[in-house]
């Protein structure tokens, strides 16, 4: 029995008939050769979210972001005119990594009027222009005006900072994001400034962890303990309320998870005391503004939108007026860095802070369960015991993601082959 309306075809997967219903291969998650193709076709071509506008709080703020899959690091700056720009983090002189703190392999952030290369002292403004060449008269025909940093395409959408490493992006950021994600422009992300960030280095292909967060079929068996001791049922059935695809992006909306309305005996004692949990602090900050873009399916008793923004960004927007974003950065075909940012409205009192702390810790506890499956999944897939794996209708986003990755790689290689003929 289904609780939510479904498309006329009867299933979401058949509604999007281009997906098919056949078992799929996960070769794309175990092959070093395919990873090299993803590096070129996806991480050097697609718009990538590298941070939030809150990471650049004032004029002169900067941060670096290492994009290992594209073998580069970018510096993102907020200039004197408040414009957000990005540059390859490489000195124009001899190619030294320009900005870093104690280790060149670690990301850094700060506030500066200019960047100075540690190697030979060349200097650059926040706009990337070269402002000083040490012993300039020793060089041959140098023109400082032509020795600026290599600019990277950078655009901001709803406070999310994106870069595109392609010299000439195929699409503007807005065109790339499409109408479904684009509708979130104007959602009041900027009101949620109280932040918790977490980082993990995981032993799996980047897509394997994304897959763990884009279906809820796993929730009753793996996260049985999300419910208090009186309410656990590992055989409970789950039903997503709405699935929607738009280009390479996708969303699943859930309903009925308004936990603050549940009977207290189904919950944990500390959860009840602090009025908070895995759906967020129960006492939500009310927003006066419109909330554009959320609940694209018009689901009754809307709970969470889980936007999967191609290639490696996930944004979860909760009914209790907070949100989180996950980013998955491949470092090899079977390792990746996971970043989680949780954003709440600022706590005014110690009690409000503890409610946010409880929600943040809950996310971490259950994410550890998800992360705990990764080594096993990667090892299992790499054994190549099976060529293909069955996916159910609730796993439609997994199916769509792997198809989108394959399509992007094929399209890029087709374009590249066409260009070289």
């Amino acid at each position, binding site marked *: 029995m289904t609780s939510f309306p479904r498309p006329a075809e009867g299933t979401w997967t058949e509604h999007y008939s281009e997906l098919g219903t056949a078992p799929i291969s996960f070769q794309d998650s175990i092959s070093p050769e395919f990873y090299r193709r993803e590096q070129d076709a996806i991480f050097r071509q697609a718009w990538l979210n590298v941070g939030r506008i809150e990471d650049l709080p004032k004029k002169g703020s900067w941060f670096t972001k290492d994009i290992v899959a594209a073998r580069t690091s970018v510096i993102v700056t907020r200039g004197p005119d408040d414009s957000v720009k990005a540059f390859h983090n490489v000195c124009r002189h001899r190619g030294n990594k320009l900005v870093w703190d104690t280790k060149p392999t670690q990301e850094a952030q700060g506030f500066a009027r200019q960047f100075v290369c540690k190697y030979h002292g060349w200097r650059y403004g926040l706009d990337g222009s070269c402002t000083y060449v040490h012993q300039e008269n020793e060089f041959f025909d140098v023109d400082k005006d032509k020795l600026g940093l290599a600019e990277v395409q950078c655009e901001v959408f709803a406070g999310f900072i994106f870069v595109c490493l392609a010299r000439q992006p195929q699409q503007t950021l807005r065109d790339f994001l499409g109408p479904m994600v684009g509708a979130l422009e104007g959602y009041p992300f900027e009101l949620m400034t109280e*932040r918790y*960030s977490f980082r*993990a280095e995981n032993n799996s292909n980047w897509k394997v962890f994304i897959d763990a967060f884009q279906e809820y079929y796993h929730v009753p068996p793996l996260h049985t303990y999300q419910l208090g001791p009186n309410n656990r049922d590992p055989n409970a059935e789950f039903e997503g309320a709405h699935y929607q695809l738009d280009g390479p992006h996708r969303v699943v909306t859930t309903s009925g998870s308004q936990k603050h309305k549940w009977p207290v005996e189904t919950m944990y*004692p500390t959860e009840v005391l*602090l009025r908070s949990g895995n759906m967020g602090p129960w006492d939500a900050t009310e927003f006066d503004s419109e909330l554009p873009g959320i609940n694209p399916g018009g689901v009754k008793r809307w709970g969470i939108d889980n936007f999967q923004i191609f290639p490696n960004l996930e944004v979860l927007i909760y009914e209790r007026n907070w949100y989180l974003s996950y980013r998955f950065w491949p470092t090899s075909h079977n390792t990746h860095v996971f970043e989680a940012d949780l954003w709440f409205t600022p706590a005014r009192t110690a*009690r409000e*802070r*503890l409610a946010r702390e409880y929600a*943040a810790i809950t996310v971490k506890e259950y994410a*550890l369960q998800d992360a705990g499956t990764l080594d096993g999944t990667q090892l299992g897939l790499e054994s190549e015991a099976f060529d293909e794996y069955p996916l159910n209708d609730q796993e439609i986003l997994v199916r769509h993601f792997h198809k989108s990755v394959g399509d992007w790689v094929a399209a890029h290689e087709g374009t590249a082959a066409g260009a070289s003929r």
Partner: protein
Amino acid sequence: MAAFPTQFAALEPYADWALPSEADRYGKRITSTMDELQEFYDAAFPLLDSSTEYLQGAPIDGISDEDRNLLWLFSSLITVSFPIECWRQPTVPDSGPASIDVTVEPRP
């Protein structure tokens, strides 16, 4: 010198749980025995239960040292509540080699 406001004097023996970062709090949790976690939980939980009004009246802006210590101790209670109420062991079951480390958190 007392770490906490006077009405929370019963928490003084557990002042070593008033740790400023989630990383420290989680580290102490996973290197404690279940008996140690249970003892701390049994001491702190009733005080959290009875202090709702007090905590609502403690603004974050300009928080006093004693209230800040209390906030940190109750933050430790949050992380400890998972082994006690949920997992029945200090670490998350089946989380294997996974670790997830905090890099940014509100202070205080």
